[in-house]
């Protein structure tokens, strides 16, 4: 479905279901240079199991118009505006990578609107390597290749996709290639400049789930340790996969979310 948020049009994947006020809602927020489709299996499951699903395309990503937002704080504000536009009073928020930071910040800023948060592949701070940032600023294809290489475990690099016939790294690369010029640099800049992560975590009162990948080189599990320490008794799940956990271990990610949400 499409919603107007300000002057922009926002695309939300809902699993082909209309939003119903009687159902609990889950908002899925993707990471840098991605779109709603990274949540394909998980979002579809919840949409067909009694939840309203709002898997967003962030501004300037996928089917949403507008320019990419330049800070995690701006994305967090935007998420609340999406809830307003959709007529959703409260929701659980699920975010991956950049999306996990936005979810954390949104929950801290608007606690009355958020039931639970699930942070997948988070890192606080979320450092971005200079080589990657330089390539992203140049819109150099190498930036996408670096991310794909760092986001998939050694096993994932060779495939074995649980989804029959799909080549994981090829899919990830092709999706990022759809990013509009300059988009990746804006997303990575938002990750790198976000400084409020630990304060937001300490202020948080809703239940939190943190999912890390033990083979994640993009946001290594140890980069989430400070965040986990700052949260109030989060549930922590570590999967044997890389950063692209929804692709590498879709069922395990779904099971972690099912057990929490």
């Amino acid at each position, binding site marked *: 479905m499409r919603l107007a948020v300000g002057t922009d049009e926002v695309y939300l994947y809902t699993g082909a279901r209309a939003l119903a006020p009687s159902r609990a809602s889950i908002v899925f927020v993707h990471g840098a240079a991605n779109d709603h489709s990274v949540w394909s*299996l998980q979002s579809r499951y919840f949409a067909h199991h009694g939840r309203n699903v709002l898997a967003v395309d962030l501004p300037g990503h996928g089917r949403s118009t507008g320019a990419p937002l330049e800070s995690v704080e701006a994305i967090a504000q935007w998420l609340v505006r999406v809830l307003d536009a959709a007529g959703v009073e409260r929701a659980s928020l699920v975010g991956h990578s950049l999306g996990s930071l936005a979810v954390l910040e949104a929950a801290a800023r608007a606690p009355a609107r958020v039931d639970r948060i699930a942070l997948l592949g988070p890192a606080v701070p979320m450092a971005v390597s200079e080589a990657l940032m330089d390539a992203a600023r140049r819109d150099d294809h190498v930036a996408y290749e670096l991310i794909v290489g760092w986001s998939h475990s050694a096993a994932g690099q060779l495939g074995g996709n649980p989804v029959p*016939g799909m080549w994981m790294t090829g899919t990830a690369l092709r999706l990022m290639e759809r990013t509009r010029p300059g988009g990746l640099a804006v997303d990575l800049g938002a990750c790198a400049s976000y400084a409020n992560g630990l304060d937001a975590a300490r202020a948080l009162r809703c239940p939190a789930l943190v999912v890390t990948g033990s083979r994640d080189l993009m946001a290594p599990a140890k980069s989430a340790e400070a965040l986990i320490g700052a949260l109030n008794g989060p549930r922590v799940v570590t999967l044997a996969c890389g950063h692209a956990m929804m692709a590498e271990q879709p069922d395990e990610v779904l099971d972690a979310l099912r057990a929490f949400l």
Partner: protein
Amino acid sequence: MTKPRTHRFDTLSLHAGSRPDPATGARATPIYQSASFVFPDSDHAAALFNMERAGHVYSRISNPTCAVLEERIAALEGGVGAIATASGQAALHLAIATLLGAGAHIVASRALYGGSHNLLDYTLPRFGITTTFVDPRDVGAWRGAIRPETRLLFGETLGNPGLDVLDIPRIATLAHEHGLPLLVDSTFTTPWLLRPFEHGADLVFHSATKFLSGHGVVIGGVLVDSGAFDWDAPKSRGRFPTLTEPYHGFHDMVFSEESTTAAFLLRARREGIRDFGACMAPATAWQILQGIETLPVRMQRHVDNTRRIVAFLSGQPLVGAIGYPELAQHPDHALAQRLLPRGCGAVFSFDLRATREQGRRFIESLRLFSHLANVGDAKSLVIHPASTTHFRMSADDLARAGIGEGTIRLSIGLEDPDDLIEDLSRALYAAGK
């Protein structure tokens, strides 16, 4: 400098898509010879049927052994995924049936494999899909043939049998200017010689029976999606409702919303393979995988041997024109140097300056070359297209496709090239007597 972590072609040929079997530790990909797969519980079963979880239900839709083959080809082609089919013809049909319906139109190269020509020219019109055939070298003809109802452009990387080199960059650009995808039959080249997606093609299919297998013991096909074509882009909008509108046959799924990059494959699997049923058997996939493991070394040898044979034939008085793009006189020589730097494959045709009876003596005098209707085997093969693969074509169509009465097609195998040259020498001598 920081470099991306990627595996190279030869490594992917051996490993892509496979892992040691989680149940047994088997290093080789097992043959999962099972029609169906047990559901852990009812919720899991429903989730598999509804595409909420990943996995296998029934081997017509997907199978673990076939999935390894599909991933491997997708990796080697640089695509997002693939579907293994019962044959190359099934792959071509699956591509067309996924995108086109009655009233739609295709623009295709006229230098096609005879089987593809049959499907497009004789069979599909019965289902309301028509094709205009054009000279593959004439970009203006491609452009002029595109109509409002055109939905697909189609050609072969190396045309059959004259080895016309498809100018993929130019034809792809033309297709994209009109919001259309380009489908390429890459059977003759394999991804070791040419990766069409890198030049702009959107969909690729193979008869995996040929070089991918190499052994000539199975029939199979593979259809690969680049994932780059935007079915919802302004120029394409409304032209591909199978991908962009709700499909009542699968939970009203809008495939292009479900998957940004793999809408085509989703529809092809959830409808085409499900309903038409031209799937690959797991044992076939396993045998093709054995072939692909040695694809790089085999293709190098195929090309090396072919160069020796072409050089030999070039000096023979009974041999007329040789249609091999590595030769300077071939009309696509410059294009081949650009698109096919590793070589132009191992299938080519030449004209015998001889009567039909001499042609018969030539073929029947060969001892190592097998006279049969196939290419891409490890063993060398020979055929007379006018009387076999292309016999349904009219004389005019034959001439337009570059096939004469004396045209002989060779598929050069992996034998010692000196033995092949001796075989050809003997046959040419017999033909010339």
